[in-house]
């Protein structure tokens, strides 16, 4: 179903798909071991922990697919949220390229992809609120590829 699938299955390479399987099918404790175990195509343990702590996952340009290496990040949060029952507000964000209203829509699409993934991992829909800021709240004010990559994100506010 094109852009709306949870996982960027085999869109970039077969190995990414493989990583995606091992991550999403792995343990749900989110301690980073699976991510590290994913090897060159996933985060190492330290990076994964960093990503979990930042409550942020990142996206490719004009895409709302969750990257396979970010699945363990979301698994960790899903696990916490499912057991705590806490409410979470998922913020979708975009880089400055593209038009403002289209980016509002794209940011919402990103946040909704994360929402659906969390729900598939046991988080209740009643716990989740989604909001898109489009390109209105950049994490990095720069105007280059590094800044854009940091700004294409979904943030779990809880």
């Amino acid at each position, binding site marked *: 179903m094109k852009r709306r699938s949870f996982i960027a299955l085999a869109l970039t390479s077969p190995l990414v798909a493989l990583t995606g399987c091992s991550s999403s099918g792995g343990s749900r404790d989110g301690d980073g071991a699976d991510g590290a175990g994913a090897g060159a195509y996933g985060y190492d343990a330290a990076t994964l922990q960093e990503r979990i702590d930042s409550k942020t996952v990142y996206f490719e340009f004009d895409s709302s697919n969750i990257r396979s290496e970010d699945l363990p990040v979301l698994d960790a949060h899903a696990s916490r949220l499912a057991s705590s029952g806490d409410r979470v507000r998922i913020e979708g964000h975009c880089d400055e390229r593209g038009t403002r209203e*289209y980016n*509002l*829509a794209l940011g919402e699409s990103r946040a909704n992809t994360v929402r659906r993934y969390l729900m598939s991992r046991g988080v209740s829909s009643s716990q989740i609120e989604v909001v898109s800021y*489009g390109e209105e709240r950049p994490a990095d004010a720069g*105007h280059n590829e590094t800044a854009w990559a940091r700004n294409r994100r979904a943030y779990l506010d809880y």
Partner: protein
Amino acid sequence: MMRKALAGLIVLLLGIPAVSHAELTIEITGGNADAVSIAIAPFTWAGSGGTPPTADFAQIISSDLKRSGRFSPSPSIQQPKAPDYSEPANLQDFRSAGIQYLVVGRLINRSGGYQAEFKLYNTGDSQLLLNEAVTAPTRDQRFAAHHIADLVYEKLTGERGAFATRIAYVVASGNSRALKVADSDGHNAKTILASNEPILSPAWSPDGKRLAYVSFETRRPAIYVQELASGNRSKLADFPGLNGAPAWSPDGSRLALTLSKDGSPDIYVMDMGSRQLRRLTFSDSIDTEPTWSPDGQWIAFTSDRGGKPQVYRVSASGGSPQRLTFEGSYNADASWSPDGKSIALISRSRGDQVAILDLESRGMQTISTGSLNESPSYAPNGSMVVYAAAGGVLSVVAVDYDVQQRLAAQSGEVRDPAWSPFLVKRKP
């Protein structure tokens, strides 16, 4: 002999408290070799007592005509000495200096402000082309000068002028946002709404009295409508999910908008009387950024139903959308031209440029420069387009001429411009 007419300048004043705000700074670049030469002589003060207006009428009119790309006004220091207003003009000096048209004017007191009287001559045959007067309220003198520029422009081009108009835009500085309205030349900026949450997508009602916009002041997007004169406003759309991209129908009776309450973002039309919604698009992709054709029959919008954002159009009464753009992988944020014949949009294949799509030939022509341009909006006479350019400035470009004007705030980024409709009512 031309009868002296009092042009009823009925300005829709923005009755907003006169808070001191930095003006937008203005820079005009480019020029047109075929531009018509004209001189605007300094307007003379002929009032009895009182103080003369502070606005420099000749300078305002000159700048307006220059940025249209169609005129080449002589700087005042290069002009021959102008004849006294009430004397028959000796136009020989102007003709010899290569100046084809001359405007002379004077200002007198009038209750609540001033009256600006002016004459337009053809220096070649000494014909008096215009002999009119406009009222100039003290607090809106500049607007009266823009109105005179409109009348001169229309007399010499046959096309209605659009200088006595305004532009709404958003100034962003860190997380703070201010929705502002300024004259079409960037002067007289007034704040409509200030917030620490995002404000975007201002849209003028066709009567020029209200703005619809998106504000995140409740930490999520909702659409508000605000009356400019009173500041009164109401929340129009606050559905779950996205509430965005408001666009008034040409008759003001309906508002197109983007909602995602039923799933993915789709285009809806709200009846402004009953507030009833009608859903126009049904894709599970992104559909947003609606713009109405001037006859109210069509709505063009951005959709990525084909995989990448492209511009489509759908009948305003519903039906199946047709794709309009085929060049490149990203065409978005369409703005229908006032004559209905073309659409301004943002084209990725051209480096996020403003391009104009001719709806008949389907040809596209780039009219912007730089990169990362956004939010094109037509002047109501179709002669100019304002857009947001990289670096947080607005650019106003003459559609058919290589003349560009940049408007920058003294601090903060200027974005999301929306050009008002005509604000001066025409003589019956």
